[in-house]
């Protein structure tokens, strides 16, 4: 998708949904949430996974990032296609993780009470049967858990 900025690109249903949500969130927050920050992220040194980044690689290069142009993204609903403005690339890292956690909870909720912690992004399904909600904080040691449900 990013490699074909300037062209119409047909997306899979899931990617279509995530991009739609991302642009909607950008509009609703007036650009405080902006999925078009990929060039700026890379310019700041985040061109690798977080585990691969070192202090030496995370150096801002003072380039002119093409961010803040989410309003120029064109959607073709009938063909599930989008066209990014030339030079614009999307970073769906944050919203994609949340979207996927919601998908996981939607699946798990069919089986029983559930909770997904996606690297700190929490999505809660139905509460445990004997509790009014998911507990927050450290549970009593008598329960024998190794982890708190929500840290």
């Amino acid at each position, binding site marked *: 998708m*990013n490699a074909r900025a300037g062209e119409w690109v047909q997306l899979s249903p899931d990617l279509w949904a*995530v991009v739609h949500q991302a642009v909607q969130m950008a509009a609703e927050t007036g650009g405080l949430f902006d999925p078009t920050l990929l060039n700026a992220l890379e310019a700041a040194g985040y061109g690798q996974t977080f585990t691969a980044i070192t202090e030496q690689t995370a150096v801002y290069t003072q380039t002119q990032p093409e961010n803040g142009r989410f309003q120029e993204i064109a959607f073709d609903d009938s063909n599930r296609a989008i066209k990014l403005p030339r030079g614009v690339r999307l970073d769906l890292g944050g919203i994609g993780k949340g979207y*996927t956690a919601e998908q*996981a909870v939607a699946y*798990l909720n069919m*089986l029983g009470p559930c909770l997904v912690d996606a690297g700190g992004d929490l999505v809660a399904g139905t509460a*445990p*049967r004997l*509790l009014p909600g998911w507990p927050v904080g450290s549970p009593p040691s008598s329960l024998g858990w190794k982890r708190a449900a929500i840290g």
Partner: protein
Amino acid sequence: MTDKMHTHDFYAMGCHMAVWLEHEDMQTAVHAFSEVESIFTDAEKMMSRFAADSE
């Protein structure tokens, strides 16, 4: 809480993931956790900016 609460940890999307499921049958929970890992793996393949073959 009951002793039927199952939990599973794994690594995906550059993060540590943890999942809890309350269910009577452990095998069902184990299968469900495997499915959840697949959900994240598939999403990562689709959306990762670090994978050249991502969508």
